[in-house]
């Protein structure tokens, strides 16, 4: 996430637009029309991007819905549905004015009240939104096109929150839908984005169809990430779900599909040999792997036992086992994304250099009683499966007894939510991954939350982290925020909220007649054309 200066925004929409137009890449000449067939990373089952954090639903929502602000490819927050915005001198009251010509897919005009309802619902679900909500913002419509957000306590990254690129993204919906409880799905898919969802053609488990929204009025700037002009060149986008990778590879080679979102890395060499195909890195920021200890139960309710996990860490070993191809991974000894603005080596000395002797000593000092460590082993996702196998070897080498518990991803989701002791169905260690956008800074990073029962699974109870995160979101000076993020990192690694095992990137593959794919954390379909 960017270090956003409010003054930049105060400069006004016209200056921003001009700066963006100069800085961003120009859209190339595109062919208009056509249908693009896309193999999505997962099957789209849930349509409400506020109800779920699933990446596939977020990706779907980027076609259908629009956002008040977007994130460009330099991680800067730019206005999107918003035309003008300003903030009071004391930084407590924000005013937003919507652009002209915004329309919902049902033909109604987008009004300020819709945005008020949408933000209110989003603030009940999203972590960043909840942090904002804790600072008592009163969101009210001033007139049909203008609304205000008035804080009761200082909150620095208001615009970062409204323009956050990953789940849950604050997508705007009509007030009648946004009034739905945040615990229920909205019943209709009505957005104001550049594509319309073709409900009648939706077949869960097979295909999702989007058609161009002829009423969409793009911004004048060049497209960049989820910001800038969303100019649509395609008539139709068809998402296909192909559970078998070999089938997707064959379909791409045979020209039956045009774009495959995430081919497994072992398919990439074959794709690169095909002269009609190309690969592309849409999200150079990548993804971060995690080893998460459960803080509730022995031995990892003991700080020394947790610290042993940091000293045993060898990111290269994990990345080789989980990803395998060195050009697609990189060790990263920061809890915040290594190519992001808050990357730091503060407090990461132990993480950067494996020391098994020290790890063994810490295990002894922790008073470990020899009970088996339950490591969740998700067998149907190769990447986390590989990581779990490395963990087993390393834990054994530093004196832990290990019980590798094999299960599928869905069972893992149920198991990881259990707070019971490991011998009663709970767990000690699990592995997962998060996109860099979700570990960019303390306000979005779940791994550094120390909220105990309110923290992510593993439930670290580290009040100091919560204080630092609160200080981070209240800080308005970028330098101060950077310093606070470093403090968060030091405490998170010292207390071992989790252990990052490196970063990796995943290429996308497409036929060469597809052009204009934008760099972003989600596949975007504006600016894309097919020859």
């Amino acid at each position, binding site marked *: 996430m960017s270090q956003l200066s409010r003054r930049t925004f105060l400069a006004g929409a016209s200056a921003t637009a001009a700066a963006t137009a100069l800085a961003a890449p120009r859209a190339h000449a595109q062919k208009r029309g056509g249908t693009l067939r896309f193999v999505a990373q997962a*099957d789209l*089952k*849930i*349509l409400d991007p506020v*109800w*779920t*954090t*699933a990446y596939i639903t977020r990706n779907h929502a980027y076609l259908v819905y629009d956002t008040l602000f977007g994130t460009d490819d330099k991680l800067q927050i730019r206005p999107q549905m918003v035309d003008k915005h300003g903030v009071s001198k004391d930084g407590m009251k924000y005013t937003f004015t919507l652009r002209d010509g915004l329309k919902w897919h049902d033909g109604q005009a987008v009004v300020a009240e819709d945005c008020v309802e949408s933000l209110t619902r989003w603030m009940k*679900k*999203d*972590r960043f939104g909840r942090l904002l909500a804790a600072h008592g913002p009163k969101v009210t419509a001033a007139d049909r096109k203008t609304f205000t957000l008035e804080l009761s306590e200082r909150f620095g990254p208001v615009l970062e929150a409204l323009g956050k690129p990953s*789940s*849950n993204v604050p997508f705007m919906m009509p007030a009648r839908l946004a009034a739905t409880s945040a*615990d*229920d*799905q909205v*019943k209709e898919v009505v957005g104001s984005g550049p594509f319309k969802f073709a409900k009648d053609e939706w*077949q*869960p*488990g*097979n*295909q999702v169809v989007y058609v161009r929204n002829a009423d969409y009025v793009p911004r004048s700037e060049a497209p960049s990430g989820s910001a800038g002009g969303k100019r649509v060149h395609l008539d139709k986008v068809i998402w*296909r*779900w*192909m*559970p*078998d990778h*070999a*089938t*997707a590879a*064959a*379909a791409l*080679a*045979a020209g*039956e599909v045009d774009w495959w979102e995430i081919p497994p890395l072992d398919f990439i060499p074959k794709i690169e040999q095909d002269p009609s195909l190309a690969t592309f890195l849409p999200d150079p920021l990548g993804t971060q792997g995690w080893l998460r200890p459960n803080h509730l139960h022995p031995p990892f309710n003991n700080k020394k036992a947790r610290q042993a996990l940091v000293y045993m860490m060898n990111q290269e070993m994990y990345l080789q086992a989980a990803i395998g191809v060195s050009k697609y991974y990189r060790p990263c000894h920061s809890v915040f994304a290594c190519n992001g603005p808050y990357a730091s080596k503060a407090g990461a000395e132990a993480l950067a250099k494996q020391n098994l002797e020290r790890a063994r000593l810490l295990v002894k000092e922790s008073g470990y009683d020899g009970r088996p460590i339950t490591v969740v082993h998700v067998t149907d996702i190769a990447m986390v499966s590989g990581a779990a196998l490395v963990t087993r070897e390393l834990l054994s080498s530093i004196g832990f007894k290990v019980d590798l518990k094999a*299960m*599928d*991803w*869905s*069972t893992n*989701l*149920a*198991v*990881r*939510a259990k*707070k019971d002791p490991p011998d009663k169905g709970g767990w000690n260690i699990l592995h997962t991954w998060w996109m860099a956008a979700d570990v960019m800074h303390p306000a979005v990073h*779940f791994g550094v939350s120390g909220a105990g*029962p*309110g923290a*992510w699974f593993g439930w670290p109870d580290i009040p100091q982290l919560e204080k630092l995160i609160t200080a981070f979101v209240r800080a308005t000076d970028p330098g101060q925020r950077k310093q606070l993020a470093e403090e968060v990192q030091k405490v998170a690694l010292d207390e071992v909220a989790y252990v990052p095992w490196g970063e990796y990137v995943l290429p996308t593959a497409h036929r060469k007649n597809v052009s204009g794919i934008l760099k972003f954390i989600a596949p975007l379909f504006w600016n894309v054309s097919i020859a």
Partner: protein
Amino acid sequence: VFAEILRRLVATIPVMGVVAIAVFALLHVTPGDPAVIIAGDYATTEDIERIRARLGLDRPFHTQVGLWLSRIIRGDLGTSIFSGLPVSTLIGQRAATTIWLTLFAMLISVGVGVPLGVLAAWRKGSWLDRVVMVFAVSGFSMPTFWLGFILVYVFAITAGWLPVQGYQPMAGGLWRFLSHLILPAVTLSVVYMALIARMTRASMLGVLDEDYIRTAFAKGLAPRGVLVRHALKNASLPVVTIIGIGFALLIGGAVVTESVFALPGLGRLTVDAIVRRDYPVIQGVLLVVSGVYVLINLVVDVLYVVLDPRIRY
């Protein structure tokens, strides 16, 4: 016969009731929880409990079964927890693909398997018999997904004659419809073709040794007439049984074929639902498929009577 069919139809009701309760019970002892999948990565324990309560998953087992059965009786299969679409709509979207795939596969299995079995029995011990048996053993042993990929590589990627994947309804044109079904149907049929060929051969061998067959040949009847009209008809009861079982197996086997060829059928719907623990969809599909199995068994029983009038129930 009609009274018997009616009696058997009525008898399916308690069978379906037992199936329904068994399916429900099995699902609820399986690890996994749709609430945690819905709740997502950021959920707290309280969020998950709230979603469980909204889905009714926190109620006692007997209450959940009772509510589900009462809806089933009213013809309501429920609603997908994830997509919010009625289970009947989801089944409706997928049924045609699986029905056509199964029918085509069965047509190929019977159309090739029965003649091969008859020929192998007629020429017992010859090279033809050995070739058919080698085919039967290898066909039966061949993994479906492997054969599917080989066929795709040869006929779709290399030759470019047929599409790699997908399903096209008949409304989009007969050739488009057929071209998307040929490779999946052949892939799915090979195992059953082999099974039917072996069963037909074994059954025919028993009949060909009968006196009336020798008499027919002695009378100078053409081998084709003897084999088809006299031998095959009397050897067909075990073959019909295996075809009936084959239908059930084909529906089950369609899961792999549908995945390999990205066909939106009932098999994939079931697997996707199991992966997500979408209980209403799993229960609905299994109930419908169980109903189809029961009906197929009924049809097989009726065919017994038609083929052998001596059979009485």
